[in-house]
């Protein structure tokens, strides 16, 4: 069978299945389980109304349960077993992991990433949003800054490989050094600081995201409050820090935590740039090192990452919900 026909059949089965599910399940609910007949008329209509949302929610809940909850539980279970998965070792994987220099390095680096990247993205995003507001060419500037968002992390890493390249003919850093007569260096091999050169890549990608959200938030500030502040005698800095920023602080927090969550998941940049060498390992790339080689260890790392992300995530969702009101 040709793949096109296969595709069409899949779509028909998928969409038709959905329609069929909703139609039939509602039909059964209304006709068989709670038929609005005789004495039970009003009561059955109410009952059916109470059940109906769950009919619609069921597929989503089921899919989420299957693809989210089960893997979490499964991963945790797997992390309690040894490398080949045939021997239960309890917390053994966690114990060895925390005792290992590489893991602690990754944890420390990850801590640096979480500290620097969200702060830098949010700050730069806010700065750009404020500075480009009401400029005629502001939208062009914003589009340019937003563009890296469309590039995959690996793609971005490749671009920055050129920026950081050793050859002064290619890399801009070494071109600058060269013009001052300095010997080329590989910034990826300067211990500790190389982490920051990696972070720059993610900041470059994510600033656009922060900028777009914060720009919208700035636009949402009532103009009159700013005019009132002008009449009250506030200078532009005071207007920005005392009137504008406090009014969008909720959005700033959401942007900050959203980027924090992203930072905790990024592995592509480190993987593509250094492969975790030169002390640049972070937790997700550390996990990748063990994946398929030692699934017990890899799932243990995954679980540690999840435990770190979870509170940020919960806080983020709460804050975002509060913003919506």
């Amino acid at each position, binding site marked *: 069978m040709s793949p096109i026909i296969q595709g069409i059949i899949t779509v028909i089965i998928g969409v038709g299945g959905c329609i069929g599910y909703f139609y039939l399940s509602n039909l059964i609910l209304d006709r068989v389980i709670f038929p609005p007949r005789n004495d039970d008329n009003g009561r059955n209509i109410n009952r059916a109304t109470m059940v109906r949302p769950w009919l619609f929610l069921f597929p989503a809940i089921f899919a989420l349960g299957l693809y989210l909850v089960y893997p979490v539980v499964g991963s945790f279970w797997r992390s309690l077993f040894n490398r080949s998965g045939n021997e239960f070792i309890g917390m053994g994987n966690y114990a060895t992991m925390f005792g290992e220099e590489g893991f602690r390095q990754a944890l420390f680096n990850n801590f640096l990433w979480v500290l620097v990247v969200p702060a830098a993205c949010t700050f730069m995003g806010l700065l750009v949003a404020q500075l480009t507001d009401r400029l005629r060419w502001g939208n062009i500037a914003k589009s340019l800054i937003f563009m890296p968002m469309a590039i995959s992390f690996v793609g971005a890493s490749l671009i920055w490989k050129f920026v950081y390249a050793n050859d002064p003919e290619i890399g801009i850093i070494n071109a600058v050094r060269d013009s001052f007569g300095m010997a080329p260096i590989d910034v990826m091999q300067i211990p500790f600081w190389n982490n920051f050169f990696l972070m720059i890549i993610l900041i470059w990608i994510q600033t656009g995201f922060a900028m777009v959200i914060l720009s919208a938030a700035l636009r949402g500030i009532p103009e009159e*409050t700013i*005019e*009132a502040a002008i*009449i009250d*005698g506030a200078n532009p800095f005071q207007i920005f820090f005392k009137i504008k920023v406090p*009014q969008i*602080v909720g959005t700033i927090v959401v942007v900050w935590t959203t980027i924090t969550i992203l930072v905790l998941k990024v592995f592509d940049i480190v993987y593509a740039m250094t492969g975790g060498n030169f002390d640049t390992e972070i937790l997700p790339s550390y996990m990748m090192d063990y994946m398929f080689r030692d699934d017990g260890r890899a799932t243990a790392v995954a679980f540690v990452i999840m435990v770190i992300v979870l509170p940020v995530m919960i806080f983020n969702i709460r804050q975002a919900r509060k913003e919506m009101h």
Partner: protein
Amino acid sequence: MTSLKLTDVGKTYGNAVEVLKHIDLEIETGELVVFVGPSGCGKSTLLRMIAGLEKISSGTLEIDGQVVNNVPPAQRGIAMVFQSYALYPHMTVRDNMTFALKLAKKSKAEIDEAVNKAARILQLEPYLDRLPKALSGGQRQRVAIGRSIVRDPKVYLFDEPLSNLDAALRVATRIEIAQLKESMPESTMIYVTHDQVEAMTLASRIVVLANKGIAQVGTPLELYERPENEFVAQFIGSPAMNLFPGEIVETGARTVIRLDGGGTAVSAVPTQAADKGLKVNIGIRPEDFVETEGEAAYTGTVAITEALGEVTLLYFETDADQPVIAKLPGIHADVRGRQVSLAAAPEKVQVFHNGISLYYR
């Protein structure tokens, strides 16, 4: 003493869009001047120019004898109350009121005194530590006014301050503003509104803006009794003044006008012999009409009536674009479909030629 003086002030956006031109106005210290006009007449723009939120394109603005065209808003000695209150949502009532004073680096004792005084006047003392979102609309508006009071400005600017309040609160707050003005006789206030009742009740003088300029300046009753032109005549008062075209047939201390509709009207506006035969419009307010058996200015068939109890509005059948409306005191049942003849006292009859009142010639 002149508090604020506008000389040939104009506003253009870009180079093409002219919003205001040739505005000349002097406001005395202690006056409450109300700007009214149809929407889009530039009344808010004029206020914002005085505030310094809009650049003055031409002409000069003086506050207390000093030209302030290029003085930043905060140094003009003005304070503004916005329609939307414009409170800082993240600051408590106290912080909202002290923001300007803190920026001006006033001493803590001075700030406290100003805030407590304003809070006492506006009965905001129990709410000083609340956030604006925990206040009602009327309370928010009082905070906005308090924010102005603490700065002790030379000129208060109000931009439709009551528009966001519901009807009952609007009346209450209007009276509060009137009382506030009473308690601060030295302060000058400029008040923009589209609500005639606010204008008539609050103003010591009203400025009617229309067609990019000032149509008339005067006390509320001057505008009501002696409008300078047809625009003001029809803008002030509700329902609007009736206009009837006609021709002057007798001149002198009293002018007799024969109306195109067949009626005759006598006006107390004096005319000269040369005016005989002049094409004019006469204006009679709906409430000045009385039913008559004798010589009528207007006779028509009543199409619709609106009985309000204290008065009855009669809408007449007419071919003209403008409706003819009479407002007769008391209840008039069964006039619908009947012919009614109306006349008005000579003092109540305005005469306009080319839209301008002959009274002001």
